[in-house]
């Protein structure tokens, strides 16, 4: 889905210039009405990424899982500093705070999968 094709320009990239403040990961979506025309995922080139759980580093698979959720139209389970009504909040792939030293958020929780089902089956 995210490979660059002739029809759209979906990418996953570590850009040379970071225009998104203190974010670790960023998902940019171009919309046409309710249709997602193009989704790009960017990883902060200054953030420490690794594959797996390592002290002080972000598991790239967990962060990509999170941003891929956005690319599919799924929102955070809460915004930073707002209350969360999901019982699995800290485990959710769509939690807005990236975790270091953990691969927990590779695994979808009920909020994550239910959001997808709601958008694509019931909306």
């Amino acid at each position, binding site marked *: 889905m995210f490979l660059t094709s002739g029809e759209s320009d979906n990418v996953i990239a570590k*850009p040379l*210039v970071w*225009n*998104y*403040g*203190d*974010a*670790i*990961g*960023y*998902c*940019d*979506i*171009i*919309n*046409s009405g309710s249709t997602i025309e193009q989704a*790009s995922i960017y990883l902060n080139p200054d*953030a420490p990424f690794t594959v797996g759980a390592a002290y002080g580093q972000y598991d790239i698979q967990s*962060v990509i899982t*999170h*941003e891929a959720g*956005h690319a599919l*139209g799924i*929102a*955070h389970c809460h*915004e*930073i*500093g*707002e*209350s*969360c009504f999901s019982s699995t*909040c*800290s485990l959710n792939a769509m*939690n*807005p*705070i*990236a*975790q*270091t030293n953990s691969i927990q958020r590779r695994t979808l929780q009920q909020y994550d999968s239910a959001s997808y089902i709601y958008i694509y089956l019931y909306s």
Partner: protein
Amino acid sequence: MKMLLKRAFALVITIGVTASILSACAAKPASSKITRTFSACYAAKTVEELCKECVTVVHGKVSKIGPSSDVGDTVHTAVEVAVQEQFKGNSQTAKTCSYWEVGGETDTQVVTPTDGALITVGQEAFFFIFKDGSRYPGYYVKDGKVTLEQFMKPDLFTSSDGNFKSISVEKFTDIVRSCVK
């Protein structure tokens, strides 16, 4: 014969230019803008880490929003804050401070957060502003309280508190004051 060829050539050029103009107009009306939404995830930084890393830390209310400008494939919007208390910054007597948020509208594109709206005039918050002029999200004041997540100030939480806790502005002000000392 030569004249006929010249006329035929001129006709072909005219048709070509006209077709180009018409197709350009049909492809994208001048008024259309690219519509983007965005979401971002952030590092779990404690209040102490933010106090240390940020160049400006203030408590205040948003007094002005804009202008917005295109930056790469996104938009940055300038935000002015009427300062109630400055904890850290170049001028300890500043009445206003500024930073930028991702999102906004320019002549070419409209960029909005997936979750909700951009910050609005009148919003009260504690603003932790980085060297690049952006700020860490959250720390809004609602009904005289600031909602903290456990990662923001772990030592305030007990095992029965869960992940969220609201504390008064006065108490949070004391926390920030002690952080920047």
